[in-house]
């Protein structure tokens, strides 16, 4: 009980000062400002949406300029779409580090069927593992193939350059790359 009394005494001694809170006589309501801000926000958001209304549908894909002469890539389209950088990195290591510059891929006919010889064995063709001399020989329109898709997928910012092409020379659509 003696302890409780002590605490009471302490509380008395530490009595907080009595501040005066003045209230402004004509309190201004923030409501108009809030409504105005909301309106500006909604207008901006709607404006952006409306401005882009005519440009493309939701889920639209970029139109890519595909090579006209060649029908088939060194791998199938799905693999290339998902893994072309994995393939290029593997090729890079094999060429630069191991000096293995070519590889064999199955030869295909006009319909995409893998060719087989009389004994039923797959017919292979040799291709160079080269970005400039193999990939870009067919995909020679940089702006409407590499760049367009890279911009669409956000790999590079609009008008930016992919690091590959700081060294590897971008083909000109008029002159085919490679020797």
């Amino acid at each position: 009980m003696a302890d409780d009394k002590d605490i009471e005494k302490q509380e008395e001694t530490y009595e907080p000062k009595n501040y005066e809170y003045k209230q402004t006589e004509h309190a201004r309501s923030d409501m108009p400002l809030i409504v105005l801000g909301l309106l500006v926000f909604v207008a901006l958001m709607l404006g952006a949406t409306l401005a882009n209304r005519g440009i493309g549908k939701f889920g639209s894909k970029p139109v890519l300029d595909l090579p006209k002469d060649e029908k088939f890539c060194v791998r199938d389209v799905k693999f290339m779409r998902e893994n072309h950088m994995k393939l290029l990195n593997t090729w890079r290591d094999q060429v630069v580090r191991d000096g293995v510059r070519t590889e064999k891929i199955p030869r295909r006919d006009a319909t995409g069927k893998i060719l087989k010889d009389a004994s039923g064995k797959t017919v292979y063709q040799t291709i160079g593992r080269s970005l400039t001399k193999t990939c870009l020989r067919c995909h020679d329109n940089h702006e409407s193939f590499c760049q367009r898709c890279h911009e669409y997928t956000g790999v590079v910012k609009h008008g930016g350059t992919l690091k590959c092409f700081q060294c590897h020379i971008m083909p000109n659509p008029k002159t085919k790359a490679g020797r």
Partner: protein
Amino acid sequence: MDRGKRNFLKIAGLTGVGAYVGLKGVEAIGNKSGKAAKKLALVIDTRKCKGDCPDCITACHREHNVPEKHNPNFKPPGPNENQGIKWIWTSTFGGAFGEQMHERTGRRKDPLLVLCNHCADPPCTRVCPTGATWKRPSDGIVTIDMHRCIGCRFCMAACPYGSRSFNFHDPRRSLKAVKPGFPTRTLGVVEKCNFCVERLAEGLGPACVGACTKKAMHFGDLNDKNSPASKALVGVHSITRKPNLGTGPEVFYVL
């Protein structure tokens, strides 16, 4: 079991035979998988080459998209003209063979062609922290992986021949015409002569050798007695640069 001297000798002998057979077997498998290693070398005949024509330098630098110092189009963007790139260039005789000169050597004033020596024991590859430069075991070319080079320039400090250049600026700014078959370099990587590794893969010889109108350069495998380089070294006096350093240069100069 008797732990006598006789048994110990038996086991030791068997172990030795086993190890020998095993090692020979591993060696045989290793030889089967790879071809015999080459020792690529370049021989420059200074009796024919006086270093007065730019043919080989122009050919090399055009082939590899090197911004050329001798080219009127080349303007190093920086204040320092030593920031240029060179793969093959001319030095003075004394500059290249300083420690092999004496006062009666005679004053030889012809410029001398110098390039990367593709050393047998290259100091540049030892210091590389990323493994971006190494000596190819198959043919002995000292090569650079530009994708891995971080531009620390340790290799430039280690090379006693000054064969390596650093890209202080974007090389495309100084190149008027770009050859599409070979990549340019980018800002902040080290580059040097690659013995035309990309041309060798296509069965062509180095660009400098092909461009020499005086037939003063000979390129080939020193392990092959019939290669042009081996033949060019028979019966002549030839020296290399800074042999005292023990790097084992593979560029030979016929005097």
